[in-house]
Every structure is written in structure tokens, then in C-alpha cells.
């Protein structure tokens, strides 16, 4: 038996090919060709995605005259870090970064905590009107927040809970520009893309076997204790990835930040103003009436963008598994 196996292995490719009536050769060629095509495709697409970042990096180190030099394409001739200094100055980088980290972190934690509660409730309990409320979650995903933004805007401008504040102080509260509205919304699972998080977390909890839950009930755990001690530790991967998404999207979000958090210096808002700042800096401080040129503005904006995404890139490098693997293995299904 083993001898026959050996001779089969030793047989040359040509012989094996003949034995399979040419199928082996055909198959080898086909898989080889596909591998080659795949390498080209993947390389091309990866380059496509990475190119703008690489481009930004090289531009951010160029002096102004390099931008207009047709000979300089990706390697700067006059290497400089002035762009970074300027961009940091315009964005008030140190303070803004601290603010952004603080806000994104707290908001993401709050949102995920609330969404986990809701997701767990939808996944593991039977209660009347459950389908109706879940339909509401889907609605929440589908309704673009811009539709309700006008009303929210006024809602928080003249904030009041059943007229209590008006009774006490004679005036409604103006919550616009403070952090409070957004924390309130996060507390009610209504932040950026929170419907999606509820959906994904519910999906995960649904797949945990019922026996686990029943065993913990038999052993004397209450509902809350079961949730905290049995279910939460299991859900760590999906919670991590939801947290990461929430953190990152909050970091770059311009919509809610622009609407509610206008007075707090956040990276996403500062980044949008960097062009204007440069223009006024050049006309007012450097007394150059012509203002900033298009190319130079773009260069500074690119530098600013890099400054915004570098922390995220570092995070992504370390937590890449958390972003991708847990999500792609969780199995999202309708």
C-alpha cells in the first residue's frame, strides 16, 4: 500500500497529466494565471487606496516652490517641516487633540454601553411589541439625520423638559454649543450610526446558545448578573470593534460636531477652517495682499488632514484585528 503511494508521488508531472487526460495541465495553468491576475488586481487596488495618503505625505514635506516645480513630483527638493508647524498652529493642535480624544472616547463609550443594553434586550428577551421597536431601530438606520437636523437644532437651542426650566428660570436653556445635547443623544442611543451598532450587537447576542443563559439562571444568577458575568465577557470582540468604529467615526464626524459642538475645538471642525486661517494669516501677518495661493492652501490642508488621521492610523495599526476580524467572523445576517 505504502509503496504504491510512493510511486504515485514520484510520478512526473507529465505522466500524471496524461493519466488525467490533460486536466492537470489545464488546471495548473488556469490557477497560475488567476494567481497572476489576482496579484496585479490587488496591487493596483491597494495602490489606488494608498496613493492619496502617500501623495499627502510627500506634499506635506515640500516647500512652496516645490509645489510649482514640474520636476518635483513625489520627492521634495527643499525638505521642510514648516507646513506641519503652520498647520499645528492653525489648528491649535495640542489642545484640539486633547479635546477630540476626550470627546470621542467618552461619546464612544457611552454610545456602545447604551447600544449594548438595547442590543442585548432585543436579542435575549421576549416582550410585547418587540418587533415594532426593532422596526424602529431599522427606521433609525434608514432616516438620514439631516431630515431631523432642523428640528433638533431648534430643539436644543430652546431646550426644555416639559417646560420645567421655563417655570424655574423664566427662560429655556440654550444648549447649542455645549457638549450636553450630544451626550444626551448618545444616552438615548441616537448618536451617529447607533442603529447600526444596535443591529450588530443584537446579531451577536442572538447567536449565543440559550443553554448558557439557562445554566446561569439555574445557578442563581439574576438577569443583570447573567448579562454582566456571562454575556458581556463573551461579547468582547464585537464590542471592541463597535467601540473602535464609534471612536473613529466620532473623530472624523463633521455633521453632529458641527451642529452641536461648535464651541469646542475639535479636529474635524478645525480641519475645515484651516484654509481660511491660512489666508488670513498670510494677508494679516505676512502682509502679502495676494493671499495664499491655491497650491499652498492645498498643501497646508493636506498636512492638516494628515495630522488628523495619523492618530487614527496608529490606532488602526495596533487594533486592526479588532476592526476587521471580529466583524467579518460575526456573520451579519438579515
Amino acid at each position, binding site marked *: 500500500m505504502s509503496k504504491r503511494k510512493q510511486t504515485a508521488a514520484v510520478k512526473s508531472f507529465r505522466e500524471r497529466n496524461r493519466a488525467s487526460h490533460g486536466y492537470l495541465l489545464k488546471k495548473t495553468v488556469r490557477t497560475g494565471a488567476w494567481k497572476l491576475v489576482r496579484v496585479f488586481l490587488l496591487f493596483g487596488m491597494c495602490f489606488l487606496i494608498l496613493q492619496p495618503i502617500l501623495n499627502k505625505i510627500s506634499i506635506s514635506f515640500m516647500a512652496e516652490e516645490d509645489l510649482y516645480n514640474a520636476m518635483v513630483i513625489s520627492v521634495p527638493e527643499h525638505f521642510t517641516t514648516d507646513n506641519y508647524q503652520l498647520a499645528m498652529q492653525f489648528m491649535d493642535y495640542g489642545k484640539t487633540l486633547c479635546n477630540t480624544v476626550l470627546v470621542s472616547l467618552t461619546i464612544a463609550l457611552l454610545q456602545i454601553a447604551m447600544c449594548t443594553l438595547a442590543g442585548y434586550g432585543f436579542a435575549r428577551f421576549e416582550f410585547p411589541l418587540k418587533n415594532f421597536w426593532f422596526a424602529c431601530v431599522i427606521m433609525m438606520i434608514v432616516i438620514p439625520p439631516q431630515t431631523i437636523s432642523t428640528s433638533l437644532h431648534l430643539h436644543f437651542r430652546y431646550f426644555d423638559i416639559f417646560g420645567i426650566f421655563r417655570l424655574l428660570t423664566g427662560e429655556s436653556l440654550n444648549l447649542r454649543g455645549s457638549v450636553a445635547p450630544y451626550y444626551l443623544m448618545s444616552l438615548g442611543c441616537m448618536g451617529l450610526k447607533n442603529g447600526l451598532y444596535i443591529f450588530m450587537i443584537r446579531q451577536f447576542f442572538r447567536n449565543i446558545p440559550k443553554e448558557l443563559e439557562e445554566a446561569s439562571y439555574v445557578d442563581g444568577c439574576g438577569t443583570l448578573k447573567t448579562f454582566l458575568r456571562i454575556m458581556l465577557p463573551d461579547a468582547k470582540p464585537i464590542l471592541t470593534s463597535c467601540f473602535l468604529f464609534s471612536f473613529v467615526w466620532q473623530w472624523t464626524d463633521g455633521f453632529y460636531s458641527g451642529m452641536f459642538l461648535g464651541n469646542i475645538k475639535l479636529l474635524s471642525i478645525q480641519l475645515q477652517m484651516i484654509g481660511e486661517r491660512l489666508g488670513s494669516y498670510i494677508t494679516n501677518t505676512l502682509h502679502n495682499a495676494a493671499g495664499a495661493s491655491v497650491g499652498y492652501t492645498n498643501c497646508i490642508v*493636506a498636512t492638516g488632514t494628515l495630522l488628523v488621521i495619523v492618530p487614527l492610523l496608529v490606532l488602526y495599526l495596533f487594533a486592526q484585528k479588532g476592526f476587521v476580524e471580529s466583524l467579518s467572523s460575526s456573520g451579519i445576517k438579515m
Partner: protein
Amino acid sequence: MKKIKKATGLKRQKAISGYLFILPFILGFLAFMVKPFFQSLYMSLCSVEVGPGGFRSLYQGLANYTRAFTVDTEFARLLVEEISRMCVNALAIMVFSFFVALILNQKFKGRALVRAIFFLPVILSSGVILGIEYDNALLSSVQDAIMETTGNTSITNALESILITAGVGAQAFQIVFDIVDGIYDVAIASGIQIIIFLSGLQTISVNMYEAADIEGCTSWEKLWKITFPMISSLFLVNWIYTIVDFCMRSDNQVMEKISDTMIVNLDYGFASAMAWVYFGIVIVLIGVSSAIISKGVYYYE
């Protein structure tokens, strides 16, 4: 006849704790979704005056809606542009992300790296960064410079000129070439969709493919007879996600106009009306297309 039984004991207790778990969601939903939703619908029918200490809304019927379509010079044009861009891009994103997910699901060297790169746009194209990316004039001027130096002969350009001068279905070709030119937009907008498809592909059991192999299926047949039906429900999910995502993008011109009208001009009524027109069109689009797609969805149970 269904027996009406009052939930008792454990069942009732569980129902109560279930409600407690989703209570924050319910409260939030009522306060920050339902109320603003109807309020903004009402505001779209009013002219809203903002004064110190409060705002007043005066009912004026459909005036804001007629203004959006007949008086305002930009809105109708922007709406058509955005919606058609959305449809074309959404289709391209679906095809692209499905294709990429198929490739990324195969085993090859450096897969982890390639995956990491493909999901990078989830971070990099989110929020404000996309809008800034978009008007990067320098990048396009550099590209123009490269184009000129290479004598303007890229493969797509050559193909484009041949096919369009051939004159058959020039319009259709133009759309395809626009997509090819905008492949970067498609690539950076399909991060989440790839993850969703990938997660679906990984749940298909290997047994099915083995059975198909034994029966002598080619890979092409396996794609259409196994892979496609098994993840067809995800097409629906992805389609809806893509459209909704498009509404949230910061380079969406209709949304830009709406927030400008609201924040700069303080014209809340008109802004609400425009938002509702957009929302109405999108929801009809989602409804119709999901109805069509869900007919083709195959549920394996």
C-alpha cells in the same frame, strides 16, 4: 382561536427586564427621533421665525415645497445630480465590494495586509475627510501634468475614444467610463460593504462546495448556484447601507445646501422642506429597490 393568556411569573418578569434593557433606546427614540421627525415635517409646512426666547412657526401650506422646485435655482438641479450619482455609484459599489470580498475570501500570501489596506477607507473616508479629499485641486492638477507629459494615452482614454466614436450606445459607455474614472470614489466608499459580504462568505459551509466539486461544478457555476444565493440577503443589507451612507457623506451637495440654509440663513422651514423632499425620494428609492431585490433573495433555513 388564539388563547389570550396573561403572561405570568418568569415570563412576565423577563418581559419587564427586556423593556428595562431597551428603555434608554425607547426614550431616546421618542425624544430625539420621533418628536424631531414630526416637528420637522410640520416645520416644512411653515415659515419659522426665530426670535429671542423661542421660535414661532406660521402655517403656510406647501409654500416651501413649491419654492424648492420653482423659485430656488439650484435645488432641482442638485437633487437630480445627487440622486443619479447615488444610483450609479451604489450599483458600482455593490459590484466592486462583492468582487473584492470574493478575492479577499481566498487564501493567498499577504492576505492580512491586503485586507488591512482595503478596510483603511472605513477610517480614512469617513466624515469630514472625504469632503476635503474631494476638492483637492492640487492632486488633479498634478494628474493633469502627468497626463500631458505622457501624451494623454492611458488605456481607458484610448478605449473611450474608440468606443465613443463607434457611436453605439455612447451614453451607456459614458456612464461606464465615468465609473472607471471615479473608481477611487467607489473603492473608498465600499469598506463596510466588503466586510459585510466577507462575513457572509465565511458563513457558507464548505460542505456545499465539496458536494458541488464532486458533482463536477465549475467555479463559475459554483459562484452562481451556491455563493450568490447564499449571500443574496446581504445584497439587500448592503444596498440599503450604501444608499443611507450616501446621504451621510459630507460631500453630498444637497445636504450641504440644506445645512447652509439652516445655519447661515436661519431659514428652518425651507431647510426642512428640502430635507423632506430628499428624504422622500430616498425612502421611495429604498422601498422600491428593496422590494425588487428581496424577491430575488433566497433564504436557506
